[in-house]
C-alpha cells in the first residue's frame, strides 16, 4: 500500500502550525518561533523604513508631514513593538549563534531567559527614552 503523504497536500497550513503553534511545545520552540516571527517582521519593517526615507527626496514639507505623523501615539506604540522585536531577535540571535556552534548547549534555556531579561531591561530603558524626550 502506498502511504498517503498528507503533509505534501497541505504544506503551507502545516508550516504555520509546525513553526508557530506552541501547544505541547517547550521553551526552545518558543524561542525558535519568536526568532522567525521577529525576523520576518524586521524584514517588512526594513522595506517600510526605506519607503518612508524615500519621502526625504520630495523635500522638506513631505518630511515634516511624516515626522508629525510619526509622533502620534499610535506610531509611538509601533516604535515600541519595533524595539521589542529588535531586542528579542538580536539578543536571541546572539544566543542561537553561540549555542548553534556547540557552546552552552545544555544551558540553552537559562541562556534564553538571561537574554529575555536583558531584552526586558533594555526595552524599559528605551521606552523611557522614547517617552521622556
Amino acid at each position, binding site marked *: 500500500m502506498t502511504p*498517503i503523504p498528507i503533509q505534501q497536500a497541505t504544506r503551507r497550513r502545516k508550516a504555520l502550525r*509546525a513553526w508557530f503553534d506552541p501547544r505541547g511545545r517547550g521553551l*526552545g520552540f518558543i524561542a525558535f518561533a519568536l526568532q522567525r516571527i521577529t525576523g520576518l517582521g524586521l524584514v517588512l519593517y526594513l522595506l517600510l523604513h526605506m519607503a518612508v526615507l524615500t519621502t526625504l527626496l520630495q523635500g522638506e514639507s513631505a518630511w515634516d508631514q511624516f515626522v508629525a505623523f510619526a509622533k502620534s501615539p499610535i506610531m509611538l506604540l509601533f516604535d515600541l513593538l519595533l524595539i521589542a522585536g529588535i531586542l528579542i531577535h538580536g539578543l536571541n540571535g546572539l544566543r542561537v549563534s553561540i549555542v548553534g556552534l556547540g557552546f552552552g548547549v545544555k544551558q*540553552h534555556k537559562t541562556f534564553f531567559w538571561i537574554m529575555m531579561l536583558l531584552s526586558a531591561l533594555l526595552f524599559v530603558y528605551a521606552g523611557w527614552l522614547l517617552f521622556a524626550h
Partner: protein
Amino acid sequence: MSNNGRPGPKTPVTLKILRYKPGSIDPPRYDTFQVDADPLMTVLDALEEIRATEDPTLAYRHSCHHASCGTCAMKVNGKDVLSCVTKVLDQKSDVIVVEPLGTMPLVADLVVDMGDFARRYEPAGLSFVRESEYLTEAQTPEGVERYTRFESCIECGICLSACPVANTNASFIGPAGLAAWYRSLQKGDGERADILAAVDSDCGVWGCHGAMECTEACPSQVQPGDLIMYLRREVVKSKLPWAH
C-alpha cells in the same frame, strides 16, 4: 467495560482518536471512546482495550510495552510520546487526544510510514551495539567475552515528529539521523572527513534551527539536538584555516 486486572479505583476518561483508512475513512476524522482508567493504565493499554472490546479495526503499532522497542510512539494531547509508558490519568484531562506522529506520512489511524524515518536515519550506518562504557572492571560470566551495550536510540521517530523543521522539510536529515552521524564520528566508524561532508549541508546540520524539541521529547536520552550542535562545531572546526 472489562476489568483489566490492574489495581486501583477507576476513572472514566474519553479518548479522542484520529482515524484514517485510505479510501474509507478519508479524509481523517476523530472517533471518541470511553475507558475506565486506573492509575496504572497507559495510553497503549487503553488502545488495546478499545481494540479488544469496541473496535477491532483500530490500527496502532506496539511490541515491547516497556519503552525499549520504539514502535508505539504517537501524539498524546499534542506531545510526542511512547504510548506504552504514558499513563492515561497522568494527562490530567477528561478528554485525551491521540494522534499519529507528525512528519512521517500517515498509513492508517495511528500508524505512520517508518520508511520515512529509515530513509533519513540509515545512511549514517550506525550499528546497534556499542562498547559498554559501564562496568569495565566487572567480571564477565563464563563464555561472555565482554559486556556490550545497545545504542540508546530506539528509532521511535519521536524526534522527527517533534522537530518543527522536519515537519515541513522532507529533505532534512533530521535529529535521529544527525545524532547517528555524530555517534559514528565519536566511535570512529568511518572516515572523519566523509562523515563531516555527509552532514555539511542545508539538509544536514545547517537545516537545524535549534528549537531543541527533539532533545526535549526523546524518550531515550539520546539528546539529538545537543549532538547536532556538537556536530556543527566539528564541521566548523574542520574548516578553520589553521585546522590543516
